[in-house]
């Protein structure tokens, strides 16, 4: 059912309302997510996750002041949002953004202004790494990179005994494109054949021509590395074409809006499994459900962990000195919903992927894959 998403207003208590704790420093954090435009729903999920973490921290007496800005999934808007947060509101930390096209210009500004940035879901390597291979000191991400997930997906397909695959991806979305390319490479290296490797664009709704090719190629698996909304639409048409191959996806599938009966028998890699018995996971899922009345999706989960990582790094540093916080974050040992995380030298998280299987209209935990 439709998630009832709260507005930011519900989640943000009046800043500065609480008495400053400890040394009295208020940590100002900016949050940039798309709150208008067609990526809004992803932005809201991310924000929900972040806000949950922030409130938990506040309840523990951590003095944090969060300011939300709309990045509209757009470079210019993202830049404006970031310059406003940094120069006008004087935040020292930014969580966000969601789309790589927002996160990239923000990361440049963050680096210039020594503002610590952690993006929950942007997978574009250039967010944390400069073209010359040097790392952006102040920029981190909470999600795993495309190569890892691509490899995981390909390995899973192999494990299922597939030899012939189709990969459908969105050229206009670099996350999807990245996953598709790495999955292809990895699957072919493992001796498989990618019979159909076809692109579509963000706004396509009719996939009949591509799917004719898929049907014609008689594949064992179809990789659909897109987000749940697109996958729902494609899966529907896959079914109508009478194609029965197993569908495999990435963390973009993780959503309560995924149409499970269409994906029956499919698998996807995810950051965590709701069935994971650890407290942190169970509490997160339970609290999220009570607060927002829906299951958390991957955006919410990553948003939650990103905020938690930031807060932990600040607490470890114990000051508002962003250089120190960035150093602490680079060396962090964080244990959260999406597993035990530390950062590699390129500020990408090292963590396990959970494989989720869809059967009987339910998701169930299949196994963990470590990098």
């Amino acid at each position, binding site marked *: 059912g*439709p*998630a*009832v*998403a*709260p*507005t930011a207003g519900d989640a943000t208590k009046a800043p500065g309302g609480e008495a400053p704790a400890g040394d009295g420093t208020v940590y100002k954090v900016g949050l940039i997510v798309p709150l*208008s*435009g*067609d990526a*809004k*729903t992803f932005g*809201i999920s991310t924000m929900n996750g972040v806000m949950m973490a922030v409130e938990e921290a506040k309840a523990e007496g951590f003095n944090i002041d969060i300011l939300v800005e709309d990045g509209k999934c757009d470079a210019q808007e993202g830049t404006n949002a970031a310059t406003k947060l940094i120069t006008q509101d004087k935040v020292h930390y930014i969580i966000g953004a969601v789309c790589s096209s927002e996160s990239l210009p923000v990361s440049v500004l963050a680096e210039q202004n020594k503002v610590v940035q952690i993006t929950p879901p942007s997978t574009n390597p250039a967010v944390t790494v400069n073209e010359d291979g040097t790392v952006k000191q102040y920029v981190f991400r909470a999600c795993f990179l495309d190569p890892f997930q691509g490899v995981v997906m390909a390995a899973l397909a192999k494990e299922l005994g597939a030899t012939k695959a189709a990969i459908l991806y969105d*050229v206009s979305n670099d996350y999807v494109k990245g996953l598709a390319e790495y999955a292809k490479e990895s699957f072919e290296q493992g001796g498989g054949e990618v019979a159909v490797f*076809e*692109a*579509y*664009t963000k*706004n*396509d*709704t*009719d996939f*009949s*021509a*591509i799917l*004719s*090719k898929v049907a*014609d190629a008689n594949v064992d698996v179809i990789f659909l590395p897109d987000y*749940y*909304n697109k996958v*729902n*639409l494609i899966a*529907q048409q896959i079914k*109508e*074409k*009478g194609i029965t191959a197993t569908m495999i996806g990435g963390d973009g599938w993780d959503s309560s*809006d995924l*149409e499970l009966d269409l994906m029956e028998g499919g698998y996807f890699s995810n950051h965590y499994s709701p069935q994971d018995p650890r407290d942190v996971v169970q509490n997160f899922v339970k609290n999220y459900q009570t607060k927002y009345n829906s299951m958390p999706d991957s955006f919410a989960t990553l948003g939650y962990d990103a905020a938690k990582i930031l807060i932990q790094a600040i607490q470890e540093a114990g000051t508002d000195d962003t250089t120190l916080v960035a150093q602490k974050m680079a060396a962090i040992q964080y244990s959260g919903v999406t597993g035990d995380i530390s950062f590699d030298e390129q500020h990408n998280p090292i963590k396990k992927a959970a494989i989720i299987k869809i059967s009987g209209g339910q998701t169930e935990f299949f196994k963990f894959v470590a990098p």
Partner: protein
Amino acid sequence: MRLTWLRTPLRIIAWMVYAALSLVIVYGVYRLIQFKGATYFFQALLDGLRLGFVYALIALGYTMVYGIVRLINFAHCDVFMVGAFSSYYAITSYGWGIVPAIILAMVVCIVLNIAIERMAYKPLRNAPRITALISAIGVSFFLEYFTALRFVFGADFLTYKRPFDVVVWNVLGLSISNITVIIVAVTLALLALLLYIINRTKVGKAMRATSQDATAARLMGIDIDRIITLTFGIGAALAGAAGVLYAIAFPQIWTFMGIMPGLKAFIAAVLGGIGNIAGAVLGSLLMGEIEVLTVSFVPFGSRIRDLVAFLVLIIVFLVKPTGILGEPQVEKV
């Protein structure tokens, strides 16, 4: 200059060129069919046809309004979206059937569109045409962003529950679903109805007269406000029906769903000759076929389907500046 000796060799060359060209064409078609088999080829044609009819359904509404008030009604695609959403709520929340859902969508769209006309276009009737266009863009933005608010439709991508089951028939190896049949039937029926209204009824003639010279039309005793309202009403009804059928064909709805099909359909209408009802359908079918055939047969086709579609549009314009069925622009000097 005596050039007659050139005749025979030139003629031979000409025939050779013709023969070569014909061979290339025949071979090309043969290769297309052979590429993945005849079934694949004809299935592609069929899929293109279906997509074309979906575009046609939307294009009819655009071209209708454009033909009468010369306004590119950018808000049309958002009215279309509202139609899809209202039927969604009727079907999922109240379990309505397809027919009442379509009727509801049409009614909602008519009310909405007439309200828009009253508020955003009517005050601009004597202003430059572009002002109304900007107003339409404003309305379009408003509808998209307003309905995306939490307490309206929200920003989620909703899966549209079809009120009936999909049946896929297999005819000679080609799969045809009942959805395709419904879309084709509804589009053709609406086309016939519109053609009848515009060309045969008094109201239709009044519409055409209004579009050509509003002042003169008033002097004939035509209440042009009523005619324009009616035009927007019909346009909205078409948008409503199209919204529901589109959502049934591609069962997912969100508040920005209208933009791309709207743009494609509008361009298809222009391709066919804007303001021309039959042209809208023809242009749409062409557009659908181009897209699907490009994806099916051109290398990297799925990446460049829009590019190919628009290149074809531009080429058609260069050959026929007013679209396929558009009347040539005559100006008596």
